[in-house]
């Protein structure tokens, strides 16, 4: 199975950091000045990526396009909330996209249940932005993820990018379900340790 390379070349890392900074500046302009040019630049970069990710689940290009537009409507509406955190724009946008995709998928089933992840609680709303999105510097999570041993990276990749359940992952890799679960737990722990107080 093809798993994208875990190591980001040094040059790529710097380019990523520059891009991440540029995107933070743009989102700041969207938040404070409701700047549509800045918004357009973010859209040009992220929209094709978000659409590609959505297409895997949505089946049709029209639907992926629709859901992608919803995602950017949310980006526009919530830019103010986000701008006060220190997080990576990329992680934020993809987290919105991922939540929206799950939401759409659930609405297709006959009964819809409430997604607590989307809900804002009086006691944790301000903190959640902080906890979920903050980072001392951008791309921190990605850097931490890049240091994961391949076998841990693989289960996280299959879960979030390929959207496989843990039993499907076990079947695909030919390992016991318990092993998939323990790798998943350890991967999350390792990343949390590296981002202590951030993630």
């Amino acid at each position, binding site marked *: 199975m093809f798993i994208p390379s875990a190591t980001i070349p040094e040059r790529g890392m710097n380019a990523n950091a520059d891009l991440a900074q540029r995107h933070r500046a743009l989102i700041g302009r969207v938040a404070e000045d409701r700047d549509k040019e800045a918004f357009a630049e973010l859209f040009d970069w992220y929209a094709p990526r978000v659409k590609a990710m959505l297409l895997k689940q949505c089946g049709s290009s029209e639907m992926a396009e629709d859901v992608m537009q919803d995602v950017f409507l949310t980006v526009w509406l919530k830019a103010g909330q986000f701008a006060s955190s220190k997080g990576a724009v990329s992680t934020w946008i993809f987290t919105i996209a991922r939540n929206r995709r799950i939401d759409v998928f659930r609405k297709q089933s006959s009964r819809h249940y409430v997604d607590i992840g989307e809900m804002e609680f009086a006691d944790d709303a301000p903190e959640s932005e902080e906890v979920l999105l903050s980072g001392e510097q951008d791309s921190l999570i990605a850097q931490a993820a890049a240091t994961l041993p391949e076998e841990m990276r693989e289960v996280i990749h299959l879960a979030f990018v390929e959207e496989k359940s843990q039993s499907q992952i076990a079947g695909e890799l030919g390992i016991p379900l318990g092993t998939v679960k323990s790798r998943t737990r350890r991967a*999350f722990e390792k990343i949390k340790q590296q981002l202590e107080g951030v993630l």
Partner: protein
Amino acid sequence: MTIAHHPDMATLIEYAAGTLDEAFAVTVSCHLEVCDQCRKSVRSAAALGGSFLCEETGVEPLGEGSFGRLLEKISAASETPHTAPDRVSELERGVTRGIPLALSGYLDTDLKSIRWKRIGPGVWQKPIPLSPGASSSLRLLRIAPGRGVPEHGHGGQEITLILSGAYRDEIGHFGPGDVADLDEHVEHKPQVVSDEDCICLAATEKPTRFKGIAGRLLQPFVGI
């Protein structure tokens, strides 16, 4: 609410990835309503997932005039008064009905008016219908004080959330908000220790894997 037992972190990560089957997702969602700690974990896991997606996704050409259509949606959205329901008060209403919000769409009564079906001495259940494609089952269980169920293992993963009352088993004491996240290797013998009935929400895999007489006999008790 003091919560002592939480879902396995691997389960929370699956919830965040959106790959838990319906019964399990609903049960975990009900726990998240009352557990700050797990809500935080799920959000962190979602951030991790977002980061993976961002690093590993290709590009797809957009529809023509995509940005223009988005701008139209934006101006439409800002003209519409903000009428989103106040979800926190919605949540509180669910809780006063005795039903977690995530479950409220599946039940049209409060916990006291449920029509229970007796499945054994001091044990009742109320199956909860799920979407046609679901590969898991969901039910409410009600067990009388002092009652228990025979020692049993599980045919697969099983997640139980206590809604009211309490039980004790080999693992510990389970009260409201607590979750027992058990895999098929765990065998236990829960005994209700509260003065009131113990009501719990139980998600199980579809019992296709139960084989033999023992499995069939215990099937009514699967869920706790």
